[in-house]
């Protein structure tokens, strides 16, 4: 019950902040509302006991990406006059297209998760420490116990079953890093 109330509260906070982020004229205000949205989203993850994803959400999006966005907005000193102007028909078309594609991906992913019974597991509480201790009577110290939490569970999946997609993603990121270096270097000697 309390979990559902908190979920609705934080989810509503994320939705409201997201709306404000896209409707504000001042780019700095938009950026700040987007950060608030990330916090709401991270809180909903925490309510579902996905602590690791919640922490990563803050660490990567609020702590790194948005800081860089804000940095650029401040350095260019963007004011709202510079962002005004009518969106063209082409922009509208691609905007609607992107939203529809995202909707399709979301529906397919959620349906797939539901078929595999993952929606229920997401809200099942983690095993308690006491249960883990009872299940490992041979351990002589708490250090020997598999008290991994969410980070351990994700690492187990990521580095065994999904190791190839993981490596492919890291190679793509490496390509992005190299591209950034080449773009910022004025000349390569």
């Amino acid at each position, binding site marked *: 019950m309390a979990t559902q109330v908190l979920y609705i509260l934080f989810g509503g906070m994320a939705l409201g902040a997201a709306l404000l982020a896209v409707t504000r004229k001042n780019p*700095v*205000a938009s950026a*700040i509302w987007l*950060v608030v949205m990330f916090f709401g989203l991270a809180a909903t993850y925490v309510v579902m006991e996905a*602590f*690791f994803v919640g*922490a*990563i959400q*803050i*660490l990567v999006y*609020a*702590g*790194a990406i948005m*800081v*860089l966005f*804000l*940095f650029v907005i*401040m*350095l260019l000193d963007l004011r709202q006059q510079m962002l005004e102007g009518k969106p063209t028909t082409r922009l509208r078309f691609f905007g609607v297209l992107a939203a529809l594609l995202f909707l399709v991906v979301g529906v397919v992913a959620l349906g797939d998760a539901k078929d595999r019974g993952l929606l229920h597991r997401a809200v099942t509480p983690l095993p*308690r420490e*006491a249960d883990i201790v009872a299940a490992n009577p041979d351990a*002589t*110290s*708490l*250090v020997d116990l598999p*008290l*991994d*939490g*969410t*980070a351990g569970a994700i690492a187990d999946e990521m580095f065994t079953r999904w190791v190839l997609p993981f490596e492919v993603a890291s190679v793509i990121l490496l390509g992005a890093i190299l591209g950034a270096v080449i773009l910022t270097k004025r000349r390569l000697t």
Partner: protein
Amino acid sequence: MTTAWSMVHVLAGIFSRPEHGGSTLGWVIGRVLLVLLVAHVVLIVGALMVWSERRVSAWMQDRIGPNRVGPEGLLQPLADLGKFMFKEDVIPRHVDRWIYVLAPAISLLPAMVTFAVIPFMGEVQQAGDWTWHQSWQIADLDIGVLYILSMAGISVYGITLGGWASNSKYSLLGGVRASAQMISYELSLGLAIVPVLLMTGSLGLGDIVRWQGEHGWFLFFQPLAFFIFLVSAYAETNRLPFDMPESETELVAGYHTEYSSMKFALFFLAEYTHMTVGSALVVTLFCGGWTLFGLEALGPWMGLLSFALKTFFFLFLFIWVRWTIPRFRYDQLMALGWSWFIPLALLNILLTAAALATGIPALLYVMPVGLLAAALVVVGIVYRREKTAVRPLAADPTSALWSGNRPAGGGATGEVGS
């Protein structure tokens, strides 16, 4: 003493987690009380640091320092608070009002909430054949280290937004410098912790302290990581020698130039709270937290005492460094972070992982010594080259150390984004 501690245990029974036999209401009340207690202690330590900064700097400069208000001037922070409260609260007309007012609060918050996961005391518990170190903290998150890094990540917002909202060139430059500096040093801060995580196999701070209580402090296993973490913590708190965001010789007062009254005081308090949190983190990650070579078995008060003493030592080190080491130039700061600390931290991770993967425990004892020796050799080579090199005219004598690609004699300071 014994009665007091048995009372604590009774209270702990009332306030224990619902799944350990306590009532939910008692647990919630207990947590709220604990949060209030820790928050107040952190703020009081911050006020105390303002006093000790002035007294210690006076002592180092052969002055007396504030000694009139209360015994040894201890009530000086209270007098300062009164002064801040009654000063005129000026909000310049050209500022972005909302963000200007919010920024000081945003800058204090991340530092305070970081304390939620730091184990400040604990006790050695025994049950049958088992002996283990049970840490006491507000929340024993199993992702404690990630939580700390995320809070370090968002602590840049207060300064950056304050600098931007002030709508003044000095403030903006201070804010931009702060964001560049804090993003850069966040990387080495995070990378320095990775060997610790590799060795403990856990992201929880309680587990890290427990590991150190059983095997020994990480200061001895990972001296290089300790050094990188400590220096990066100095850069993250914007303290001298890395106080570029507010360097008064170039930027008047940097990001808080336009602030007055309690809003300025909040920025000030945020800096000291960041120092307190940074010291507590160094102690928790590298100096055994509340353990002290087996002495913690004497009782929980020994753990608290050990944690407090170690934290106060690192706080003193913050002040000591501030009054002895001159400010770095901006390009020197960036070069130190990006071309020294990050590669060194990565090397440290690789070596630690190799030692753990080969399963040779001796490597873990030999490696730190070898790394320290290698670092010393590198410093020696750089120092010799520096001594024999022809110094550019009128340039900082240490500039050759950090700026390989600067034109000779180009002594320009303070350029943004170099």
